[in-house]
């Protein structure tokens, strides 16, 4: 076991002059902006990992006069708390990223959809917004940003549920297609990006795509801000280069007794010790929106799983069958197995059910319940049964 540190990066929180970046982009061709982002290979940091440049280009192609940029600051994934820090430390960079996206697709209006619990950030954000709008005026740009507050439902971080919520409706995911870039907020072409994604675009426009690509791997370029929690002496927020193995990560952040790491929060995967060195943290391995939770041998993986299932059972929007009922069945099912009311074979039925949920659920929530479920049951079967 080496005690080498995983490479620390300081891009997201680096204090730069946003004015300079804005000044640079106001004279650029919109398509050149999308191209630069495309060249960087930046993939969305909100979890799904869609190529950001491509998303912008799709929206840019739409021939609507009204388009929107939305910064997804709902940050509801359990164990994720990096967007809060970004908004707190470098709010100007977030707005700058929105302006860049706005310029690229031809949007004049941007919204920050802020997690309800982050209400305390509003005064700070508004103060920063005044400065931002002044700068926009100075450069003769009529791009404006407003802040909208969520109300505490995890599902409202899902892009289409977020639109519904912003439109004053119940936050339920929509059918796709159409995708947001064609029909998003109020049916208009919309680019929705995670807070961190937007800040990355600022740095890409600042230092160039090549600079961004210097870090990371073929499938996972650049760096990423991680929210590290659980059984670790070093809980907190770290920007790390993508492409490390879980083993490397645990060597740096573990407490010497790490038995599993939940990568990507409740909707992510649980990686057991025996797979640490073969598992890459990134889009080629296990992707993460930033949450890394370490568990040591004192933890019951049954409790961990139960906790996640409890979360999903409550946070499913409830509209579609596989997710609404599936979550309840998984939860009640593992309880029944634990209590001996169902025999261990029943877990196989549940694993099949989780597969159906992955294939047939309407949105990413239901589709990813099986990630934690499948990986915990597969690797910690004894702990679930006995």
């Amino acid at each position, binding site marked *: 076991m080496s005690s080498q540190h995983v490479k620390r990066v300081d891009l997201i929180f680096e204090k730069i002059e946003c004015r300079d970046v804005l000044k640079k982009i106001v004279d650029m061709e919109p398509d050149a902006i999308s191209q630069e982002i495309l060249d960087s290979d930046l993939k969305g940091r909100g979890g799904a990992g869609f190529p950001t440049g491509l998303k912008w280009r799709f929206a840019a192609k739409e021939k609507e006069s009204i388009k929107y940029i939305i910064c997804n600051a709902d940050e509801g994934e359990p164990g994720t708390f990096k967007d809060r820090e970004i908004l707190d430390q470098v709010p100007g960079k977030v707005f700058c990223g929105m302006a860049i996206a706005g310029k690229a697709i031809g949007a004049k209006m941007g919204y920050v959809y802020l997690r309800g619990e982050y209400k305390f950030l509003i005064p700070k954000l508004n103060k920063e917004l005044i400065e931002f709008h002044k700068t926009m005026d100075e450069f003769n740009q009529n791009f404006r940003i407003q802040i909208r507050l969520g109300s505490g439902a995890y599902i409202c971080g899902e892009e289409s549920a977020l639109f519904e919520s912003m439109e004053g409706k119940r936050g339920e995911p929509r059918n796709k297609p159409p995708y947001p870039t064609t029909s998003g907020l109020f049916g208009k072409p919309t680019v929705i990006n995670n807070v961190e994604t937007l800040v990355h675009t600022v740095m890409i426009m600042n230092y160039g795509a090549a600079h961004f690509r210097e870090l990371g791997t073929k499938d996972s370029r650049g760096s990423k801000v991680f929210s590290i929690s659980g059984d670790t002496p070093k809980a907190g927020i770290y920007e790390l280069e993508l492409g490390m193995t879980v083993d490397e990560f645990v060597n740096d952040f573990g407490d010497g007794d790490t038995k599993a790491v939940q990568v990507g929060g409740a909707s992510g995967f649980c990686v057991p010790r025996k797979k640490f060195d073969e598992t890459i943290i990134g889009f080629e391995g296990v992707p993460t929106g930033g949450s890394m939770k370490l568990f040591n041998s004192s933890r019951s993986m049954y409790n961990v799983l139960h906790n996640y299932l409890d979360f999903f059972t409550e946070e499913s929007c409830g509209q579609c069958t596989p997710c609404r009922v*599936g979550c309840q*069945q998984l939860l009640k099912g593992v309880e029944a197995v634990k209590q001996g009311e169902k025999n261990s074979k029943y877990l196989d039925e549940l694993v099949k059910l989780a597969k159906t949920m992955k294939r*047939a659920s309407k949105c990413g929530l239901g589709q990813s319940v099986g990630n934690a479920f499948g990986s915990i049951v597969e690797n910690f079967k004894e702990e679930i049964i006995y």
Partner: protein
Amino acid sequence: MVSLSVNGMLVKVPEGTTILDAAKKMNFRIPTLCQHDDLCVAGNCRVCVVEQLGAKSLVAACAVPVSEGMQILTNSLKVRSARKHIIELLLSEHNADCTKCYKNGMCELQNLSNEFAVGDHIFIDLNTIKEYTIDRFSPSIQKDDSKCIRCQRCVRTCEQLQGVNALTVAFKGDQQRITTFEDLSMAEVICTNCGQCINRCPTGALVERTYLDEVWDAILDPTKHVVVQTAPAVRVGLGEELGFEPGKRVTGQMVAALKRLGFDSVLDTDFTADLTIMEEGTELLTRLKRALVDKDSDVALPMTTSCSPGWVKFIEHTFPEYLPNVSSCKSPQQMFGALAKTYYADVRKLDPKDIVSVSIMPCTAKKYEANRPEMRSSGYKDVDYVLTTRELARMIKQAGVDFNMLKEDKYDSIMGASSGAGVIFGATGGVMEAALRTAYEIVTGREVPFENLNITPVRGMEGVRQASVLIEDCKEEWSFLNGVELKCAVAHGLVNARELMDGVKSGEINVHFIEVMACPGGCLGGGGQPIPTNEEIRRKRTEAIYAEDMSMEVRKSHENPEIISIYKEFLGEPLGHKSHELLHTHYTERVRY
């Protein structure tokens, strides 16, 4: 056109077609639950998932439009196992006491469960864990959440077709359910009792409040004289519940069946529909006279119809400032009820306390209407029990009457004679047309200037329709109407009624007379009619209604011989003293929340 393959077979369909419809074209039926032709796509039950080769997950056939080169499998291993799981999941959350359920045998979930031979019950029963109480407070609608599968058809119906929004989705996750404002009972909210939600509920979660036992008890009670009235739309719907294709007219068989069930007298709501025309037509002309001759600025115009109880409750909640505009006429059902226990009792020498008045309606709101406190002008409850078309079919089955073999029979008299004008009350635009046939003739002495009396501009399925008739060469006493272009508007489905009333409010729509029917297509698409419903079925029922009209000897309300004699023998004249006492009513402003 887009080409794709469904189960290996190539098909070309227009752009925008859903996978569901493309498959249907190839004669592959994909099962659905939340999908309904009348409603926007929800894509939430997931029963219709199919495999799209190359796609990461399964796709909902109802929600995804076809794309070029798409390869769809509707029955692959993945599809089958997912579908079976989904049905199992729904059943695990469902109160599956099928044999005791009101919808037993008519439940879409039950059918699916049957089709997929779901018998393993692999999952844990979640239904018994949760606590449910059945909402039986409304006289029209019974809501049982334990049977609800959260397809949201009812919510979409109430919002998109009716613009009422009495039902909504609340809470999330395992707590998610369909409820009302503040969880109040259906009797306490802005529900109009139209029953359109019932028509689209795939399970037994929303059903009518049934009064079958009460009616049987009355029939079997030798001291009671039970009269039954049948609404116009019932005769073009009932057949569907008894094995006929939509659009089949079964008037004569229905009458024969009712007689076999033991009703003492089988009478026709069409008779009081004709009577409504006499009263309402006169009321309109009187209002016009007050406006045009007396220059009375207090007179409320446009006047709206009042025969649809769903519409009446809607306007009481939503546009109470327009209540003076609503015709004071009771609905044909209630006119009938009031006369059954007065006029009819007199003629038949019966004590009204021994009469039980039953009506067969295409409507659930009629159940509520019959229970309004003001509907007792005979001194008794004017209409004792209201049954829907569906309940009548059930009665016929219960009594073992072989409906298909029945010979046509005729309505009894008195109050059994009707005109074609009374019949078309069952279709949207029908009241307007019937009123015009009579009013025009009263005023000018001539028939309406439309071929065969068919006033086609007020017919059709458009949500809001406007038409006008120029009045010329009036009779002496109506000369003030000379040269007046009588303008009218028709709306069906309350979402359209709202649009129409908003237009009236803003001044955009400027008419004299408005007909509103709460239900899509009018009464023939009512909340008490056979299930399923869709535009095609409603169109067929509409055709049947107009065919029935054409087949009638008398086509105008004022020429109905029984109408002529009831005025001569009992009522005196339209809007006369007796009419006011028995046939007219008033309305109540109601809160929205």
